[in-house]
């Protein structure tokens, strides 16, 4: 039965087809979903904000390429978009006026230490952008916390909109004048804050798109935001501000939307199952409100997500899927 030109056949284990989703497709879609918030940021804070985003992305991508090529001898995977996301997310949670070296140092830390020292994409425990932000907070407290007025000076990277209020920190920083912003400004983003976190609408749009595409499970943002909303209403607040117990204000102001839709939903650092994701979202909400209400730091999103990242393996352990035919019928 043998044949001179017998065909060479490929033999692999089943299944022999794959679905449409792969890492680059997921990651680049997330990049797209992040774009609206960034555009608002650049519109509000000027081209310097764009410059910060670009620096951060370049630093993240270059760091990854160098580590993979020269240190690990792996194929370079920067084209998959995951380092780009880390770069963007890091820039989005930096004040618009930070010195140029801050995003670079942050991105290098995020990629080299938080991501690759723990085994690279899929093995990192903490969200790289958030962990880098926490690191910068400690390493460079001055530019991170107070250098936010730089924009007022003008110059090539000046604020293109000329909106006055953009010289202050997050609306949750009552010490910066205790100014209260109306809901419309909070929704559109016409408030001071970090580059990508101010416009709730832009973030919600991007987030909803990711939910629609199936890259984000609604349980995380819904659990997170609903928990903050409820706790903010009913927990006794120590802060003296008109918005202290205003749940809508708490939900819209600060980094909550960015955190709930784009940070807490990071696949790698959040639980695996739907049950776990709901627990995770609620946990983030509880911690965020507790930090905002009772800790020295006015914003709780970054640390609460990092803490919940740490708790992910435990959540995973207790939220395993139910084997068919086991337990309830």
């Amino acid at each position: 039965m043998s044949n001179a030109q017998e065909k060479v056949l490929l033999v692999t284990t089943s299944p022999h087809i794959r679905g449409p989703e792969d890492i680059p497709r997921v990651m680049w879609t997330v990049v797209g979903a992040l774009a609206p918030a960034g555009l608002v940021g650049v519109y509000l804070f000027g081209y310097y904000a764009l410059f910060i985003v670009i620096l951060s992305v370049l630093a993240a991508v270059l760091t990854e390429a160098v580590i993979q090529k020269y240190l690990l001898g792996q194929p370079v995977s920067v084209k998959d978009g995951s380092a780009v996301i880390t770069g963007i997310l890091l820039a989005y949670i930096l004040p618009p006026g930070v010195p140029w070296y801050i995003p670079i140092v942050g991105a290098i830390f995020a990629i080299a230490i938080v991501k690759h020292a723990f085994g690279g994409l899929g093995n990192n425990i903490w969200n790289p952008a958030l962990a880098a932000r926490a690191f910068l907070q400690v390493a460079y407290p001055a530019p991170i916390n107070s250098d936010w007025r730089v924009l007022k000076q003008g110059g090539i990277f000046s604020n293109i909109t000329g909106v006055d209020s953009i010289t202050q920190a997050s609306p949750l920083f009552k010490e910066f004048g205790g100014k209260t912003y109306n809901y419309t400004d909070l929704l559109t983003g016409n408030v001071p804050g970090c580059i990508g976190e101010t416009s709730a609408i832009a973030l919600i749009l991007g987030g909803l798109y990711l939910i629609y595409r199936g890259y984000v499970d609604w349980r995380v943002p819904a659990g997170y935001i609903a928990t903050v909303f409820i706790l903010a209403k009913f927990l006794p607040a120590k802060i003296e501000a008109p918005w202290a117990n205003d749940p809508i204000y708490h939900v819209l102001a600060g980094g909550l939307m960015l955190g709930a839709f784009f940070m807490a939903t990071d696949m790698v650092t959040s639980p695996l199952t739907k049950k776990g994701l709901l627990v995770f979202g609620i946990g983030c909400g509880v911690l965020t409100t507790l930090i905002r209400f009772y800790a020295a730091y006015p914003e709780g999103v970054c640390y609460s997500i990092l803490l919940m990242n740490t708790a992910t393996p435990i959540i995973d352990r207790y939220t395993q899927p139910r084997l068919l035919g086991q337990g309830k019928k």
Partner: protein
Amino acid sequence: MLAGVKELKSFNGGIHPPFDGKSLSKNKEITQAPLPEVAYLYMSQHIGVPAKPVVAKGDVVKKGQKIGEAPALVSAHIHATVAGKVTDITFKPHPVTGARTQVVVIQREGDDEWAPGLDEPQDVEAMSPDDIRNLIREAGTVGLGGAAFPTHVKLSPPKDKKVDAVILNGAECEPYLTCDYRLLMEKTKEVIEGLKIIMKCLGCKNAYVGIEANKPDAYDKVRSAVGEDPHIKVELLEVKYPQGAEHQLIKAILGREFKPTQLPIEAGAVVHNVSTTYAIYEAVKYKRPLIQRVVSITGDGVENPNNLLVRIGTPIEPLLKAARLKEDANKVIYGGPLMGIAQPSIADAVTVKGTGGLLVMRNAGEWQSRACIRCGKCVDACPYGLNPSLLSILCESEHFQQAMEFNLMECKECGCCTYVCTSRRPIVHLIKTAKYELARQKARAQEAQKAKEAQKAQAAPAVTATAPK
């Protein structure tokens, strides 16, 4: 849409491949394939103990003559699928298991004539359940959906288990395959008759026919064939893989669950697919052993996809050539794209009872696997409630015992997890390898145990045994 989406019965998990490939062959009527010049009949074409050849080299056999005898209950007879002469009894790698397996080779000769006593109309009305079971057992009927579980065993439920539902599985959820669909369209009455034979054999009053909603014409045909019979319900099912797997079918139709490793009988149900039910009809009504079946020859690797009635043991090369194999075809699969088995060679492969499809792919490639990014897609897709992400990681790092604690052995290898995996991880491959490795370890441990016992038994006489020397 035929019925409101809400009415469609379904299950949890599963996948919706966007291109199901059915259109390639679904409108091709079943035609008889040319008889093979030489038929190669494996003595193991079923789950269970291999059959023992009851013919010798040089024997002349008739079509349908028993050439392999099932030595145990969980086994199945093998019959000559062509009339001719036994030219060899040898060993060849099995197209499904890959193991070297005994094969009876028959060179076709003379007329295509049935062995005496076969191919005669039977009086089904007068039969007892045992008569039916015996005919089915004699016919060597096995599950034709791929798993090839001996049918008479499925029809002999343990005394303490009650069957209150027979399900005719017309879902045919594997993409590309259309053999069951064609049978439902062309042999509707016969298939329903087969279903009634099963009901009679099991003494079961209720039956269901499950058909995926993408086969509305088959649904209509079955509806009219069933007519006013109040005991047979025809159900439309959501188009989703693996809708036709026993667990998912029973969950969708009866709302009952049982563990992946358990049999449908635990849920009071018995499931047979269309091809098997047709084979049962042939076996009981006409005393025709299982010597042929419908095979879909399909995929983008052939110019002319079709559905052929193929004698079991037919070499696939002429079948593929007749369907005009394309130049760049580079993968040949027994079965569908999700659970089918890739063949190493076109020239050596022959069909077996479980072969319902030959799927030919062109430009098939491999996927670059990455570390798990914990997207959870595999967990959502697993219709059996496993954690494929964790299993793949544990199996990859060879933590087999831990994998067992996370239900490794409950995995049905349906492929859903691997299909959806964002990181393109070969999850099923890792799971299969782990199971294989565990089975090997177990076998080795058993051997070691035996050797130890043998040593112990010899320990006492050993002194005298060595003394004379």
